[in-house]
């Protein structure tokens, strides 16, 4: 990646990102055996997650009254969204250990580009393609199985996925900003990423009230997943939210991302180096 550092100072931010992304792809393909194993592992692991849910349906017929198609749509949306943010946001995930603890972040601050862009360029991770493909597959199957899919699904699917990817990217940026305080990355944040994926694949009605509130207004997981899914499936909300809410609610993911970028800026402004 370092050889992609701009030799030519006039390279635009986007062109620079393209170079960094390309260098990262080449680097990941350097060990093809390992890469292939990782990708297959990612595909299989994530698909197994759905196998667990499917087994519950086999035995019990429904999850709290929801049919397999609806749960498959939820599962597909949350997994595809998360895989996109995983692909882009690797730099934020490793930020504590690789940049703050080592003092490497000082070097990023010296470069004449925004730190967020440089960290996005840390790695364009290919491995989550496995999760993306299986999520897309389950999402498609869910829409096919569900009895009433409204036409709005055509634009709601991409809208919900970008909102979800923005939200998860926000979590990763927030996690990185936290490292300014804690130096090492805190694995607790995995509760919001992997734990968010886990929670997002179940219907919101299943959870206790405190958790439903948190997943709607704290981490807007329901806004990017549950409510858009209801709108796509024309499934009235048992909790009484109007269906139209699902058409605008993915915007909550972008609001969350904006909030986390603001937190990041505050963090950078108060950054004191810990390196040597």
């Amino acid at each position, binding site marked *: 990646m370092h050889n992609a550092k701009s030799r030519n100072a006039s390279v635009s931010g986007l062109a620079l990102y393209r170079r960094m992304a390309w260098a990262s792809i080449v680097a990941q393909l350097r060990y093809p055996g390992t890469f292939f194993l*990782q990708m297959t*592992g990612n595909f299989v692991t994530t698909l197994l997650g759905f196998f667990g849910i499917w*087994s519950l349906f086999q035995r019990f017929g429904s999850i709290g009254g929801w049919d397999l198609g609806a749960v498959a749509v939820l599962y597909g949306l949350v997994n595809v969204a998360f895989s996109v943010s995983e692909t882009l946001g690797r730099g934020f995930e490793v930020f504590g250990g690789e940049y703050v603890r080592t003092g490497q972040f000082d070097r990023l601050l010296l470069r004449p580009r925004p730190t967020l862009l440089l960290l996005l360029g840390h790695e364009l991770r290919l491995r989550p393609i496995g999760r993306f493909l299986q999520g897309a597959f389950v999402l498609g199957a869910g829409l096919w199985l569900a009895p009433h899919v409204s036409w709005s699904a055509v634009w709601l699917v991409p809208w919900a996925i970008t909102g979800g990817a923005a939200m998860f990217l926000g979590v990763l940026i927030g996690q990185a900003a936290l490292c300014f305080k804690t130096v090492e990355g805190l694995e607790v944040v995995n509760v919001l990423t992997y734990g968010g994926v886990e929670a997002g694949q179940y219907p919101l009605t299943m959870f206790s009230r405190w958790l439903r509130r948190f997943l709607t207004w704290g981490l807007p997981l329901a806004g990017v997943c549950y409510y858009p899914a209801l709108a796509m499936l024309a499934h009235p909300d048992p909790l009484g939210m109007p269906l139209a809410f699902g058409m605008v609610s993915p915007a909550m993911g972008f609001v969350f991302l904006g909030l986390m970028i603001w937190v990041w800026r505050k963090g950078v402004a108060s950054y004191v180096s810990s390196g040597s």
Partner: protein
Amino acid sequence: MKPRAYLTAFGLQWKIGLRYRIAVVAGLVAQMWFGAISLMAYAAVYHHAPDVGAPLTLRQAMTYTWLQQSLFTLLPLGCLPAVGDAARTGAIIYDLLRPVDLWNWWLSASLARLLGNAVPRAVLLACVAGPLAALAGLGAWSLAPPASPGAALLAAASFALGALLSATIVMLWNVMTARTLSPLGSYAIGTPLAVLLSGMLLPLPLYPEWARIVLVLQPFAGITDIPIRLYLGASLPGGPLGALGVQIFWLVAMTLGGRLWMRRIIDRLEVQGA
């Protein structure tokens, strides 16, 4: 050979596992979160279909989930990190030069790493999900005590075998890492296999009927699923002794097979690095 060397390898990794206290607390929060979500899912499905006659009661499924969550770090998710680093940097050559049996050397380190990670977490989570949850009025969601003193004894023996079995599977990942020269592949294969086949994802008894026998007979069931079922006093095909037999069978089979495989890999090993 001198057992002292292996004890040293064990002691070193055990201490490394105990070093990270904040990680233990962080892990606790994560396990509680995943446990709570699973519990709410099980409560939803059980209450909606009360007369399905599942092989575990809801109460048993909850205890199963808590035990499984508390033993997450006991699962063979990938190779021993020290072996991964050694393979990547070429330092593996030092391990080959030691006057010890390589299999036992890595095995004792792997076992200590698993136990050093799992024991503090398991004790903490068991306290929080068991007595503390019951005191807080969440008795219906808590971790239940063993079904009977006999079940507790059987489970203790079975958990010990399970830990050894897990370390033996980690040895297979170690050998694979020595072959592929990078630890990442072992994690990519090991994590999904372990999470699915040990019952971490969904209790093994709750999978569809046609898969039940196969699921008990595969090696990963011996790590946590068989011990937990003995703890619950739940039925096992072949009875409790048959279940212990499955654990011992895999322990012996994988040790013999793994040693053979390791010899082949080490004989034609190409060391990278400086």
